[in-house]
């Protein structure tokens, strides 16, 4: 029997940050191969060479227009390590309070403004949820859209309060933070956190954080949905109904490897989530087995990336970023290919939940594997895990205690800062020689998720997640949009020019 002819689809994707193109082979029944291309060279690492050690604190938050706090924290942690300083608990709390505020706004904006909008796709015109999705998620009009923008605007004020500046707060420095939040500042933060939590419970969850924390296995999820109108009418309940009807619980698996660098500083303060599990611990999962996280096992490959080549992967301390403009059809992306133990790994809210051992996601992935549904569910409900932690952080900040431990000179040497940014594992590796930056390597969450093939020709996570997806209409491949968006693709560093109509 002859093989069905394959067609190649070149798909520019909207509603992702930056520039992403997907090329797919489709045999009429399913996607059989895929290539993900980041199409913009950035080169921040090269801009940093030769600069003063602290310049990373100012430059790297500009790597991304929406994750500035995450880059600032990674840069500050690298310098903390270089200086050998243990920062005061107050500084740990303030830094991470700001980071988690960035996380929860990102989760809500992505979920409500970007992911849910796909349910307005004409492909779903005959689905029962279509009309309601329009009322909720139509751009500029949808009831959930407007409320989500209002609420996320407010939660970010926490960063402005503790950072003393908005936007582009640069308050984290080696040794702690450069601001000294007052008692009144903490009262303000507490009010904002409480208001946001109330909004999140009412509008997104449709129940209290405590009730949601009791959902521990898949059957609990079904019971929870049946329990009350409020549960079904919240955005989370509506997502569950739409996503299942659209079949999102059957697509987008990927490799099944997960990485989370965690937030080791808050682990030090013994913060736990309301379901009793750790919060943002570090680890790596492959074949269902979790192992300790060790940054020494991270490498970056460029075999299929538009950079000057080297044999296999290099650890970021040895990393180089030399763009290659030579015509080479094998090199199809400006993104490098990060690997852990030479394996591709998915990162983000689902990876964090699995590494933390969150029971619901452990159960869902054990039963169904990772899917678009599970990935987005993890993102929409991450605030339920993080908001109680934020509350504890605010309560734990003592305005009378120090926020900074003196750091004078930055010594020569190598260090790194690894954290969980909104979209997953983010690392900065820095090397200082003769008082200046000799090497700076940044590995972003989307480099993990959207990586091209590595030296072993193994696909990146979302390239792999595309395989096997059946397209109802190849001219309107909404299934691929769902899958990419479940990773919250973010290729950063775009141009923002106001254009005439």
């Amino acid at each position, binding site marked *: 029997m002859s093989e069905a002819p394959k067609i190649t689809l070149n798909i520019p994707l909207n509603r992702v940050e930056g520039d992403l193109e997907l090329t797919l082979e489709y045999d009429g029944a399913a996607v059989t191969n895929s290539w993900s291309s980041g199409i913009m060279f950035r080169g921040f690492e090269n801009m940093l060479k030769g600069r003063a050690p602290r310049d990373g604190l100012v430059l790297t938050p*500009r790597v991304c227009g929406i994750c500035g706090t995450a880059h600032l924290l990674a840069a500050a942690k690298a310098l903390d390590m270089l200086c050998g300083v243990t920062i005061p608990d107050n500084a740990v709390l303030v830094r991470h309070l700001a980071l988690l505020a960035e996380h929860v706004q990102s989760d809500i904006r992505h979920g409500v403004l970007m992911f849910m909008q796909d349910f307005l796709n004409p492909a779903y015109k005959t689905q029962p949820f279509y009309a309601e999705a329009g009322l909720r998620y139509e751009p500029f009009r949808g009831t959930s859209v407007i409320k989500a923008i209002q609420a996320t605007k407010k939660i970010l004020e926490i960063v402005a309060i503790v950072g003393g500046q908005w936007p582009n707060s640069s308050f984290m420095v080696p040794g702690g933070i450069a601001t000294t939040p007052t008692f009144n500042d903490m009262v303000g933060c507490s009010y904002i956190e409480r208001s946001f939590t109330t909004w999140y419970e009412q509008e997104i969850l449709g129940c209290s954080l405590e009730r949601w924390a009791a959902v521990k296995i898949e059957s609990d999820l079904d019971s929870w949905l049946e329990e009350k109108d409020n549960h079904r009418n919240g955005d989370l309940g509506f997502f569950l109904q739409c996503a299942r009807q659209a079949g999102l619980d059957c697509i987008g698996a990927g490799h099944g490897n997960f990485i989370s660098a965690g937030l080791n500083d808050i682990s030090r303060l013994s913060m736990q989530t309301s379901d009793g599990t750790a919060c943002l611990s570090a680890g790596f999962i492959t074949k269902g087995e979790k192992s300790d996280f060790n940054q020494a096992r991270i490498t970056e490959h460029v075999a299929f990336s538009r950079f000057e080549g080297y044999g296999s992967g290099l650890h970021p301390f040895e990393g180089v970023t030399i763009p290659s403009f030579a015509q080479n059809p094998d090199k199809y992306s400006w993104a490098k290919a990060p690997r852990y133990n030479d394996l591709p790994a998915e990162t983000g809210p689902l990876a964090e939940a699995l590494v933390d051992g969150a029971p619901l996601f452990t159960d869902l992935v054990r039963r169904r594997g990772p899917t678009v549904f599970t990935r987005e569910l993890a993102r929409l409900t991450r605030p339920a895990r993080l908001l109680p932690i934020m509350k504890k952080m605010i309560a734990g900040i003592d305005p009378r205690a120090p926020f900074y431990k003196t750091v004078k000179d930055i010594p020569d040497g190598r260090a790194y800062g690894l954290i969980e940014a909104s979209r997953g594992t983010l690392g900065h590796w820095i090397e200082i020689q003769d008082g200046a930056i000799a090497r700076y390597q940044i590995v972003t969450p989307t480099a993990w998720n959207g990586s091209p093939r590595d030296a072993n020709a193994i696909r990146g996570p979302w390239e792999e997640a595309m395989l096997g997806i059946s397209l109802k209409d190849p001219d309107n491949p909404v299934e691929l949009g769902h899958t990419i968006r479940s990773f919250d693709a973010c290729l*950063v560093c775009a141009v923002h020019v106001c254009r005439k109509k």
Partner: protein
Amino acid sequence: MNIRIICIGNRFFEPDAAGPRVYDMLASNPLPEGVQLIDGGLAGLNLLSCLEQTDLVIFVDTVSGFRDTPGIIVMNTFDSLHIPSDYDHNSGLGYLLRVAPLVITENLPEIVLVGIQTGSDSCLCSQAARMCLEVISGYRA
């Protein structure tokens, strides 16, 4: 009377560097009383809170398609601006201006855009910086 000048753009990407360059110029001289200068960077929708508790906001940004030749445009209505129909992480000033009246329902400030078309040379940026101050003078008069 509170006034904010918010300069938008990416200082590491030349085609989008005009706003930050105007910021640097304005920051190097004393500003009139009651005027706050903000480096808006690529903050997009995260600038919404900068539109609260103020009377006038002047955005400075790179624009395209408004003129045949390089120059400055000033507008206080935005019907001619391309507004993206969808939100994404890239959603910039156009989206912000469209969404602001929908979510800031009380005391939305007057908003003016000082746009710099084609290039970020220092002559155009100086002109844009002067224009910001003229807009403020005109508003106060």
